[in-house]
């Protein structure tokens, strides 16, 4: 009987896209400020404040705990880029670090009860497009325009369509993976919170969600940020023409 009640209530559960309340147009171009963008502004402010505080009065020999943390973070990204891409791609450290922090903090926004911007495909797809542009740029830079076009007919000319599809599939799969992982976390989390609220008069919703959050929010967010950055680095460094 209770199960039936639960199932009946479960019909009310639904997944909604991000709110799109602010709409205006500039010169005939429709602009929508969605919930994801507003939350991303919040993420940018958080990151800016945190890194501003971390980067103030640095000394040659670290004495404060604050500088230790800052050096650990910088070292983490530097090692990541050096291990995956090699030392000659050192300048990508800045972009990879920014991407990682943005992705991680955006996904963690779900913990605060906000809608995580990364569970919106348009946010993650933007990062995928940036990776795509960086990849193509690196191809042109290392092989020239001739090498860029020659790369599409290698190893055989009839491979041309497959190579083009392969190029486009990279950013699509990369961004869909990140998006679907975070979305799956929030959907499963929402379903479980909903179900826990129904049993034992809502008492079960104290404490139990914390264990789920540990996996779906903390672990999954970190892993997805890490994988997105690793794949970006791999695509960019593999695009090198010889």
């Amino acid at each position, binding site marked *: 009987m209770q199960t039936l009640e639960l199932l009946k209530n479960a019909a009310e559960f639904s997944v909604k896209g991000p709110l799109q309340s602010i709409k205006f147009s500039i010169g005939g171009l429709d602009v929508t400020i969605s919930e994801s963008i507003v939350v991303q502004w919040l993420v940018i402010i958080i990151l800016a404040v945190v890194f501003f505080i971390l980067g103030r009065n640095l000394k040659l020999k670290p004495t404060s705990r604050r500088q230790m943390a800052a050096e650990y973070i910088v070292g983490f990204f530097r090692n990541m880029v050096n291990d995956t891409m090699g030392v000659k791609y050192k300048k990508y450290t800045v972009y990879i670090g920014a991407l990682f922090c943005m992705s991680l903090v955006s996904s963690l926004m779900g913990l605060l009860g906000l809608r995580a911007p990364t569970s919106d495909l348009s946010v993650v797809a933007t990062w995928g497009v940036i990776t795509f542009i960086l990849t193509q740029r690196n191809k042109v830079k290392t092989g020239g325009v001739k090498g860029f076009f020659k790369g599409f007919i290698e190893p055989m000319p009839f491979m041309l369509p497959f190579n083009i599809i392969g190029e486009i599939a990279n950013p699509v799969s990369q961004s869909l*993976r990140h998006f*679907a992982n975070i*979305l799956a976390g929030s959907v499963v989390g929402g379903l479980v919170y909903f179900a826990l609220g129904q049993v034992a008069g809502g008492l079960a919703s104290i404490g139990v969600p914390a264990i789920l959050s540990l996996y779906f929010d903390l672990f999954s967010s970190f892993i*997805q940020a890490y*994988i997105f950055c690793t794949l970006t680095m791999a695509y960019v460094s593999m695009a090198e023409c010889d």
Partner: protein
Amino acid sequence: MDNLSQAIVLGASAIGAGLAMIAGLGPGIGEGICGSKAVEAIGRQPEASGAITRTMIIGDALAETTGLYSLVIALLLMFANPFIGQL
């Protein structure tokens, strides 16, 4: 009549969502293989456990992708059904 066709579409979509999630089998097997090989590798070479774990997690994430595609399809069918509008 209209009610009936709507009911058919809704029921078929629910079945479709369930069928789509069968794709969860593939990533499950793939990640299992990935994990077992990583354990073997760490057993053989414990000092490389850091690098092995890192590689394993990336492999896991890549194997997971097809499952997530099916999840996207299932979620579309359940919460943003494209077929209801075409009735």
